[in-house]
């Protein structure tokens, strides 16, 4: 009896769950992280303060606590009816956004100030300067660390298994509970699934890096 072939549907569901959780959280993290990075370099003090607070708070909170805060806190605040998958996306996305923000900001800081000054001197607004001139050049520096963050995110999705989300971690738990399978074999197949996902992410980012390297 082979764990994988016996429970292929379950593995597939878990694999897809992890992929979906990773992809959607990554999307949220990238959008939020870039926006918060923009806040942190904006000329408006209130936005800068908000950005700093966001990063400080989320970066320093253990992810499990954040999951608890989202799954228990939000319903307590009256936000009911979200299913556990979307709550997990929120927790993972917000958490990772703090790190993405700092990677984007280090990319922004690596762009020579003269670039932004030249943009402002031809009359571009802050938003135009950022989106047209600074961010496109910041990506080159920010892409490698963001790649690492996305891999960390993929592995962090396992925490969601503790909060009623179907993904690889929950597959592992329920199979472990089923007597009769060798735990190490289960571990091995779960690990293979994660490796597929993380290799896919690093491949994607290697590709991005190469594309950006030739585009100049």
């Amino acid at each position, binding site marked *: 009896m082979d764990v994988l072939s016996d429970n292929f549907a379950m593995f597939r569901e878990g694999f897809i769950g992890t992929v979906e959780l990773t992809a959607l959280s990554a999307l949220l993290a990238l959008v939020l992280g870039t926006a918060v990075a923009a806040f942190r370099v904006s000329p408006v003090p209130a936005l800068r303060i908000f950005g700093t607070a966001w990063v400080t708070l989320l970066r320093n909170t253990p992810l499990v606590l954040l999951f608890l805060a989202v799954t228990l806190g939000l319903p307590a605040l009256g936000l009911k009816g979200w299913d556990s998958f979307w709550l997990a996306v929120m927790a993972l996305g917000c958490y990772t956004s703090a790190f993405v923000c700092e990677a984007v900001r280090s990319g922004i800081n690596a762009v020579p100030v003269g670039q932004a000054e030249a943009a402002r001197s*031809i009359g571009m607004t802050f938003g*135009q300067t950022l989106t047209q001139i600074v961010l496109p050049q910041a990506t080159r520096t920010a892409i490698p660390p963001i790649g690492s963050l996305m891999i960390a995110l993929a592995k962090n999705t396992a925490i969601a298994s503790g909060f009623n989300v179907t993904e690889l971690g929950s597959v592992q738990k329920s199979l472990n509970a089923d007597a009769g399978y060798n735990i190490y074999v289960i571990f091995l197949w779960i690990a293979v699934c994660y490796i597929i996902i993380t290799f896919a992410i690093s491949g994607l980012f290697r590709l991005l890096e190469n594309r950006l390297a030739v585009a100049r």
Partner: protein
Amino acid sequence: MSEVSVTKDAAPAADALVVLKKVNKHFGALHVLQDIDLTIARGEVVVVIGPSGSGKSTLCRTINRLETTESGSISIDGRPLPQEGRELARLRADVGMVFQSFNLFAHKTVLENVTLGQVKVRRKDRKEAEATARTLLDRVGVGAQADKYPAQLSGGQQQRVAIARALAMDPKVMLFDEPTSALDPEMINEVLEVMQQLARDGMTMVVVTHEMGFARSAANRVVFMADGRIVEEARPDQFFNNPRSDRAKDFLSKILHH
């Protein structure tokens, strides 16, 4: 300190385009701009010279508010410089700036560099903007480089593209902060020639430079700065042949003997 009163020999501005009144600025404890009064007439070419650290770049950069000031007023074409935001951006579009280090947008081609502001700031149609860009690139002699990236160009070519980029906004005044200081000697002239032509075409220009040849031939007025003050203003021939202040004499003797 030898304080010399400001001497104004140049003709007073009939049609003032840029007016600075009692402008002050500090960098920490350093008083970089001290009660700067300066009026630049439409069509006038003003060369700013002075020892290193005297505040020439800072003066240049306050005119389009890349540097903020603490007191005094700056107005361009009768309108005071707005503090921040869209209003300021709009006014900056009317003030061209050319930097010592070119600052071409590194991820954009030469053509895109000259087109971007027209499309994003002036809201021109892309076709029209590209046509303008190509005309300007031809005018500064780099038309053949339009599809290259800045890093593929020589310094002199980059600086000429930077001038074209500023001109593309159809500015009322152009600011040059040591536009030839980062260039190899053989490239200095190609940039100076473009600037000479611009001056002949009637562009209002403020030029910080150590190129005395350019100052003599193209400037209507030389402004000499030292220690954050305008120490002397005069017509070029007067200034170079017969400087009044000790600071200017001292400065000229140093640079002309090298």
